[in-house]
């Protein structure tokens, strides 16, 4: 089966600093694919390159059978990439429902409709309410987004991203700052998504990763260190060393650790 998302030789340099160095990654349709790695491994850079908020220095990105390397972020979103932000990024002066409705009205092609009152587009409001039910925020629909708790904001973040009906959902450290209970609920939410949604998750919390992921890619110093099923990756010695700090120490004291 052809992968939904495929990067080849993806590289991003900042001057002489190489943040991402020839990363080739393949995300199968329907997968729960996690990208992990220590701080500075290039996870966030990879995320930004895939979603289109950064341009690669070299390499290609194919999504859903098309080369999207040169396409801007909004075009990639319309092609079916949904994303959440590392720090909850919402429309704080709007209500919870309006936050999600911004996504559903775009999906319905009504973002520039100027005549009917926004609330009268019944399909837009219904689709938005469905997402709120799904993430457990239906009771908060009329609340201003600014009044939500941290955990609720993360839930809303996911609802907004899902409301565009993406083929690929990209989650950037979704459980950062969440309580253990919230993280568990979040993992449940992600596993409850149907096979129509492929998930690429950048995560720090290995518990969440190993509970969710069907495939794991480990990044280290901008390169792919390991790639395989969760069990394979867990058993991998180089990965263990990277996480235990062994390899990181070597990097500090030797010219070329690899």
């Amino acid at each position, binding site marked *: 089966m052809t992968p939904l998302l495929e990067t080849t030789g993806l590289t991003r340099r900042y001057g002489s600093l190489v943040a991402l160095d020839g990363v080739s990654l393949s995300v199968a349709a329907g997968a729960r694919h996690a990208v992990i790695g220590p701080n500075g491994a290039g996870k966030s850079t990879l995320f930004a390159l895939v979603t289109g908020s950064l341009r690669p220095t070299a390499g290609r990105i194919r999504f859903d059978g098309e080369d999207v390397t040169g396409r801007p972020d*909004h075009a990639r979103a319309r092609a079916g990439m949904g994303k959440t932000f590392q720090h909850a990024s919402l*429309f704080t002066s709007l209500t919870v429902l309006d936050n999600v409705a911004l996504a559903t009205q*775009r999906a319905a092609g009504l973002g520039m409709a100027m005549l009917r009152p926004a609330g009268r587009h019944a399909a837009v409001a219904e689709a938005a309410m469905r997402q709120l039910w799904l993430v457990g925020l239906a009771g908060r629909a009329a609340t201003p987004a600014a009044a939500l708790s941290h955990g609720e904001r993360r839930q809303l973040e996911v609802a907004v991203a899902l409301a565009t009906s993406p083929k690929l959902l990209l989650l950037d450290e979704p459980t950062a700052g969440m309580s253990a209970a919230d993280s568990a609920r979040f993992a449940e939410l992600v596993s409850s998504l149907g096979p129509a949604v492929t998930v690429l998750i950048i995560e720090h919390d290995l518990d969440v990763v190993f509970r969710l992921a069907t495939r794991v890619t480990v990044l280290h110093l901008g390169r792919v260190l390991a790639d395989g099923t969760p069990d394979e990756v867990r058993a991998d010695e180089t990965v263990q060393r990277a996480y235990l700090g062994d390899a990181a120490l070597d990097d500090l004291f030797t010219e070329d650790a690899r």
Partner: protein
Amino acid sequence: MSTARRPRAVAGGALVVLALVPLLVSANVADMLTRVLAFALLAVGLDLLAGVGGLPSLGQAAPFGVGAYTAALLGKHVTTVGPVQLVAAAAAGAGLAAAVGWLLVRSRGTYFLMLTLAVGEIVHELADRWEGVTGGTNGLAGVPPITLYPGGAPVRLAGVLYWYVLAAALAGAGALWVVSRSAFGRTLRGVRDNEERMRSLGYRTFLPRYAVFCIAGAAAGAAGSLWAAQARFVSPADLGFEVSALALLAVVIGGRGSLWGAALGAAVVVLVREALSPQLGGRGPLVLGLVFVAAVYLLPRGFAGIRLRRPRSIA
């Protein structure tokens, strides 16, 4: 009366009072209130742009002035029919906005403010220099009074002119209100709050920014024609920096994003400038400055922050 109906009742009452004005006041006062209405349409359009769309412009005098010149030139040379002048002026304002906005709305924050200011100054300079068309610094005098329909009698009564301007300003503000409440209005608020997030949802954010810039330009142009219909004289001062600044002041006093607040703000600005200033020996700008400071301190959300409805409890 239930609290939910109060805003509607207040709006209805305000409309009745507005409609009765010419029967209650002198011609001079009616003339001044006509200018208030024209300026209010400019301010409401600017509020849609700045308050709802997050694009504070310091150059709205440009489409306003272009609309005023368009109406005056039409009146002198082509047609005195007011509604025709109104539509042509709105189109001229929108046309100017469409021409300069293509580049302007790609800038953000202070850059946008400065670029709109620059465009305003350029158009002002143009009005000053292009004597063949604009009459230069002398302006365009002797604009004939408008007629309400082809072949109609010239409108010379201040009260009748007031009613015409009231109807036109209400229609314009009503259209802006509809736009603000639409799905497009929600898009504008989304772009104002978090443009990056909007892009991640698949919005090409240039489009709503450009569209609202053109809409505000049309409103400013229409307001310019109403202004010219009352003044029957247009000069470069009508598209000077002061007009832009006062319009933005009206939006701030009124409270950003509510539209009706901006209309009230416009009333305060024009009344202070015209009614109070002569009695204070021309110190109107000083009073406006004090009003501005007082509004910022006492009404941080402007008039729109005064609640007619008790805030709904958060469930």
